């Protein structure tokens, strides 16, 4: 009897001991294919780390942004690992809201991270977030329609070529539109595209004394080119189109060209989803001969809030999820075409990946061409290619996006939209103390 009781006691003690040591990590993440795949494969991590359990909170990106911002700003402590974008990392690290990632392990090989992505996540020489997947933007086009029209897409097209080709390829009666571009208002929607496009026209958001620049010629050229192109060769109701709407149009054969995130290449080339999977070609985002292309740079990254009490466990998870070994694991379990792209140089040197992803070279070139520190032709006081990494940008960017979207819907002219953008950006920047 005594012996049985001792055994039970020992078992309970062992159980309690294990429970006391076990750590549960709360991970807030976005709903996209790569992140969902990571959740499926997370068993490999927990098997290797039996003392760590994982709790996932998956949310749509805008809801996630609101949730994690509220939590980190109030030190709510609901999450141990956050999925955040390249916009948040420099702002939050400056506020000391993030923990530097200095325990990723000797095998992590941080030097293998693509420099343009790594630079956006580094502050004072310290890495504050580890990139899970990265993307730029590029042109996706219908090879069959180009061939039929006698056109050849260069690897590095200009805006003049894109404009001519789009107008030639448009057949509104057959519901085939020359070009599909974002029109839905939002700092991460139409303004991501238009800010990157403006860079190639030599425009910038602010001059060195933070004065908005919408009253300058490069912005006028950007907006009139965009509006003219969409009027002549864009789909109906384009002012409501974001990534998903354009993806649906392209996949169903209604767009001859689409300029958007490189991650779209894996969707449009997937025969299970796309009617035009075997007819898609890829090219770099257009330029205007000024030395800057109109492609953006974005990465979803894993970071640890400064308030987390489980920093060591969180760092070991981040080291696993953003490692070369994780990429190999995805390749083994789900195939090379499903590995998270855009973060590591070694992936682009891998012949198996290059064979599975015909858009790999262009993705790499696009990412390398984007420089968050020098996004446009002229000097700027900010970092970020398709955004300005200041807290006020979300509000200003969305308000400017609404004016430009209204111009696309025909509710105001390009000049009126630019005047409105200039007035509201000046007002907000003055209120925030940037303009003295």
């Amino acid at each position: 009897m005594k012996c049985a009781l001792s055994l039970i006691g020992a078992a309970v003690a062992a159980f309690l001991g294990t429970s006391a040591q076990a750590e549960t990590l709360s991970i807030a993440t976005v709903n996209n294919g790569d992140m969902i795949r990571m959740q499926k494969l997370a068993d490999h991590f927990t098997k290797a780390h039996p003392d760590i359990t994982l709790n996932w909170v998956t949310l749509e990106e805008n809801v996630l942004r609101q949730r994690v911002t509220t939590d980190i700003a109030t030190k709510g402590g609901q999450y141990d690992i956050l999925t955040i974008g390249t916009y948040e990392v420099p702002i939050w690290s400056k506020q000391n809201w993030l923990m530097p990632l200095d325990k990723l392990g000797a095998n992590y090989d941080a030097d293998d991270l693509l420099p343009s992505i790594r630079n956006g996540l580094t502050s004072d020489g310290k890495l504050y977030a580890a990139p899970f997947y990265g993307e730029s933007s590029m042109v996706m086009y219908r090879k069959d329609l180009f061939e039929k029209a006698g056109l050849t897409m260069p690897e590095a097209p200009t805006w003049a070529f894109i404009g001519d080709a789009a107008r030639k390829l448009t057949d509104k009666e057959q519901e085939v539109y020359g070009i599909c571009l974002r029109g839905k208002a939002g700092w991460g929607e139409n303004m991501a595209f238009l800010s990157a496009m403006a860079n190639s026209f030599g425009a910038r958001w602010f001059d060195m004394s933070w004065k908005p620049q919408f009253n300058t010629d490069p912005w006028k050229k950007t907006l009139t080119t965009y509006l003219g192109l969409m009027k002549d060769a864009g789909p109906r109701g384009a002012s409501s189109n974001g990534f998903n709407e354009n993806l649906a149009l392209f996949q169903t054969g209604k767009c001859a060209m689409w300029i958007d995130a490189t991650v779209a290449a894996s969707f449009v080339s997937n025969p299970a989803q796309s009617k035009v999977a075997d007819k898609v070609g890829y090219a770099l985002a257009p330029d205007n001969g000024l030395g800057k292309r109109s492609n953006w740079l974005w990465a979803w990254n894993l970071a640890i809030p400064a308030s987390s009490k489980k920093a060591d466990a969180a760092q070991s998870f981040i080291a696993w999820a953003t490692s070369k070994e994780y990429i190999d694991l995805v390749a083994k379990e789900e195939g090379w075409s499903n590995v998270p792209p855009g973060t590591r140089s070694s992936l682009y040197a891998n012949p198996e990946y290059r064979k599975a992803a015909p858009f790999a070279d262009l993705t790499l070139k696009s990412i390398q061409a984007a420089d968050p520190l020098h996004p446009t032709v002229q000097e700027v006081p900010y970092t970020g290619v398709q955004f300005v990494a200041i807290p006020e940008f979300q509000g200003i960017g969305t308000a400017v996006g609404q004016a430009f979207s209204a111009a696309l819907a025909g509710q105001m002219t390009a000049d009126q939209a630019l005047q409105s953008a200039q007035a509201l950006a000046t007002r907000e920047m003055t209120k925030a103390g940037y303009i003295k």
Partner: protein
Amino acid sequence: MARAATNRRKLGLTLLAWSIGIVIFFPILWTALTSFKTEAEAVASPPSFLAFHWTLENYTEVQQRSDYFLHFMNSVIVSLGSTLAGLLVAVPAAWSMAFVPGRRTRDVLMWMLSTKMLPPVGVLIPIYLLFRDTGLLDTRVGLVIVLTLINLPIIVWMLFTYFREIPGEILEAARMDGAGLKAEILYVLLPMAVPGIASTLLLNVILAWNEAFWTLNLSASQAAPLTAFIASYSSPEGLFYAKLSAASTMAVAPILVLGWFSQKQLVRGLTFGAVK
């Protein structure tokens, strides 16, 4: 002749009612149909209504990816809990306003209603901080408290409206027969107001079930109800409409069934006192 005209009128009204019903129900029907399509068929243009390859793969994937039962139970507990807690406070409040009104009763009622006009995001940070300091973040109790407070004005207003229709003389007679306040409310007032209370309860359960702002912001993984379950399937980068539709169908199905079985009670309560 007159009978034929009446029949035509009846037929016309029936057709009109069905048309309106179909228009209102169509988005739900479309969501349910989309949940049985493949992702490619979900965005096909022109869309197919019924002639598509029916599949259950979206439901299978949603089941594999999420703990539906946990979210469902959270929704049940939070919506029923907040409704019952709300009724406990609202019944005495509505009784006093309906039968013992003071000079400021109408002002108090208007003030209560005005709290519904404040955009919730305006008080998000103070409430978040309160929840953080009291350990209520990501707890069912926390969500019950916040949803009770949010829906209380509506419960009080609805009950006040129903109670006002009950003649005060009946309560007076009960008092003359020696009934105390508790007996007056429990054995006289409440049985007479059952249709009103039932419809208030049902409406509040529906409102709490569908509440997304607070439930999304104050919960994470443990207390997250079905609103968070749906939000986890929405994505601005990638066409996952079929999976999102499957998740939405699973989230609205319980409340739809509840509404269907209690529609008579709901309509009776909502039109209580409308026709004299």
